[in-house]
């Protein structure tokens, strides 16, 4: 087991290196740079001398290979450099946004699990009944609806409903306060994006839970349990559920990692100052250092989450042994 863990941890490095090469090259394929955008992005006169000064300062005029070497050397030293747009440390830029993205990811995962697991089980247990059809319709609707669209609907709905009821339109706060500073403000801002993303996320997990449960419920040992006269509740909860959880855990893990950096549009809809919004801004501003670091962060999160999911397999299914 320990050798497996060490091997998996060592695999992180080539994965990160591969991602670094790809993102470095892809970013530089886009014409233009942060300096041209910064000094002339609003259509005014952009002094070529000033642009050159900026490019020199940011080392954009260095040969690409030198830029890559500097980037990797900084990465090895855990120095992610400075944002090309704000000149703030990249670690600072990420640190002020990471807690909020993490909180949403946790809240959305919580919403998803409390919806998906019971609904998936009920749907499987009551296969081809009205209950099953209803759960399937709800989950298919969740997959079909992009969470950012649902977010827009939620905001508009809140505005319209509150205005109709109280005469004063209300919408969630548009700037973040940590939960330990102002829990009411924090939750009234983040509950809505957590619901919007959690619903879509739960739909995927519901369908996965249902199909995994159906497979397990057809297994011989379940039939044996029924033959022995065990009640259905015990069969489902004690014997079937744990075995059905393997694919569900995989889906939840991947979705959690996605939420940490992939809420690109949803964060904009709710004006959340999170990692996803930072991602969009860094790309549109051609902020290479920040984009590279964000990609590396997301890759790292994916690798870690996948690793944890793999470890969880062994706990869920004792037959799985890593060596």
């Amino acid at each position, binding site marked *: 087991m320990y050798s497996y863990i060490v091997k998996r941890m060592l695999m992180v490095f080539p994965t990160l290196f591969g991602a670094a090469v790809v993102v470095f090259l892809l970013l530089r394929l886009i014409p233009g740079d942060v300096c*041209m955008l910064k000094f002339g992005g609003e259509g005014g006169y952009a002094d070529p001398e*000033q642009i050159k000064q900026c490019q020199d300062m940011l080392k954009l005029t260095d040969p690409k290979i030198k830029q890559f070497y500097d980037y990797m050397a900084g990465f090895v030293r855990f120095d992610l450099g400075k944002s090309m747009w704000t000149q703030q440390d990249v670690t600072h*830029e990420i640190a*002020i946004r990471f807690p909020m993205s993490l909180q949403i990811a946790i809240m959305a995962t919580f919403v998803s699990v409390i919806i998906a697991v019971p609904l998936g089980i009920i749907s499987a247990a009551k296969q081809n009944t009205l209950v099953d059809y209803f759960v399937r319709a709800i989950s298919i609707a969740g997959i079909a609806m992009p969470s950012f669209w649902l977010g827009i609907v939620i905001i508009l709905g809140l505005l319209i409903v509150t205005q109709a009821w109280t005469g004063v339109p*209300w919408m969630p706060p548009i700037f973040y306060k940590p939960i330990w500073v102002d829990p009411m403000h924090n939750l009234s801002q983040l509950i809505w994006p957590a619901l919007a993303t959690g619903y879509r996320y739960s739909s995927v997990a519901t369908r996965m839970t249902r199909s995994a449960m159906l497979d397990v419920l057809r297994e011989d040992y379940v039939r044996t349990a029924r033959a022995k006269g065990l009640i259905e509740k015990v069969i489902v909860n004690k014997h079937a559920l744990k075995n059905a959880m393997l694919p569900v855990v995989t889906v939840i893990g991947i979705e959690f990692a996605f939420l940490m950096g992939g809420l690109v549009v949803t964060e904009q809809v709710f*004006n959340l100052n999170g990692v996803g919004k930072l991602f969009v801004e860094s790309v549109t501003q051609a902020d290479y250092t920040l984009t590279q670091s964000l990609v590396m962060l997301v890759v790292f999160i994916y690798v870690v989450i996948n690793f944890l999911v793999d470890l969880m397999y062994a706990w869920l299914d004792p037959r799985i042994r890593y060596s």
Partner: protein
Amino acid sequence: MKGLAQKLGIAVLGATFAYSASTAKAAAPEYGGNLNIVVGSKIPSYDGHIESTFGMIHPIRPFYSLLIRENPDNPASPTDFVCDLCVGDVPKGTEGGTKYTFKIRTGVKFHDGTPLTSADIKATFDKIVNPPEGVASSRKAYFKMVESITTPDAETLVFKLKHPSGTFIPSVAMPFNFVYSKKDLDTHGFKWHQKNINGSGAFSFVEHVQGSHVKGKKYASYHHKGRPYLDSYTALAAPKMSVRLQAIRGGRADIEFRGFPPKARDDLVKALGDKIKVQESDWNCVLLATPNHEVKPFDDPRVRRALTLSIDRMSGSKYLSNIAIVKTPGGIVFPSHPMATPMSELQANIAGYGKDINASRAEAKKLLQEAGQSGLKFTFLNRGVDQPYKIVGTWLLGQWKKAGMKVDQVVKPTTPFYASLRKKGDFDVSVDFNCQSIVNPLADVSKFLPSAGNNYANFEDAELENIYNAMLKAETQDEQKPLLRKYEKRVLNDLASQAITLWWYKINPHRSYVKGWKIAPSHYLNQSLDNVWIDAAEKKRQGVN
């Protein structure tokens, strides 16, 4: 549908009228409160001398003072400047318009307590006008006429010019010319202000959370006595227009200073009625259609002329102003400025401004035929921004099609768009943009000079350069005006080097309890917030906390 549009129109008119009526009454300002502003762009740095974005101006400008500024009580006038850190009226040029002497206020202090003297203003303008090697200054080119800046004493600042210049005073009044403390520049260097703030403006810096908000609090020792009225302000970053709009509707923000499209204004007015006030103004920004003269057949003036002749600016104004932030047809000068050419003269003298669009398009077809370019096919480069780029671009395609041209539109995101326009020059005809802060006609029209760094039409014309140089040195508006007309005719008619589309139109709907702020012809102007106040009773009535 028509009925709904009419109702909305009446509601908007009503809100605008209500605003005019309420400002006419001019209630006494109240003290206190926090103003929540939503800002649609990011802050690259705090240094006004190098930045050009409203994303920096809106949250940061209230921390700083200027030597002179637009009149905050009359910002609609493009020629009304008043002293901020100087006293009395804005000085007139002496010695044949080559010397400007400013008397500086006494008793002004920076937020750190350092007294402000003429030496600070000199150090500021030295940094802007003659930055040391390696120090950037975005507005250096506006001050080419400055020969020297001297301070005979702590209360006097003298600008000596190489020649009289009509662009000098408006250039000094630009909102980016934040006055810095000489002590800070001497102690911390010229880049310190990129990440630090120490001004003498109406508000002092409290905090900035990147990507989230900037907060400022009232500066008790502000030099305009009795101001500011607000206790504080919070500038909330909100890149999406829909968020800014809903934030005002939902009471999370009180105002947005850049401007909304007509539909957003109508939605707000429809939802909130008299809780919203609407201020509207012509905007000192315009989109151009810029042909690349280095690409055939756009090296042929007949083809370029056909492009501008095909555009029906009058009907464009009528219809586009319902869906986009454009409205006013005009020449190369901001239409509301006294130096601008009246429409009747444009109609009489400039191709593409005639009253009969059918005749114009017939002439365009004839010119294309003469140039051997009937059914001309080309690609129009546009920027991937809805308001107003993509809307105006799509409209232009239709206009050119009506003159028999076949045009494809290529829309690129901002970074590759500017790379094509500025660096690679790999376009046939492109959308281009001229947007300024202070209305400074002579400086603003430098965009059309072939030698200007931001003219992307790629051509040379000695006559245009000569007219411009003569205009720069003309002392009075009476001398400048005929030269400006000649210059405009050369650009838009004779060379047809670029085509003007429609001037932008600024629409600022805001909560009606926000008082004192008046719209200016630019989203960069009137942002000191020292005259803004909140009507607490009205705010309570609206149920906004």
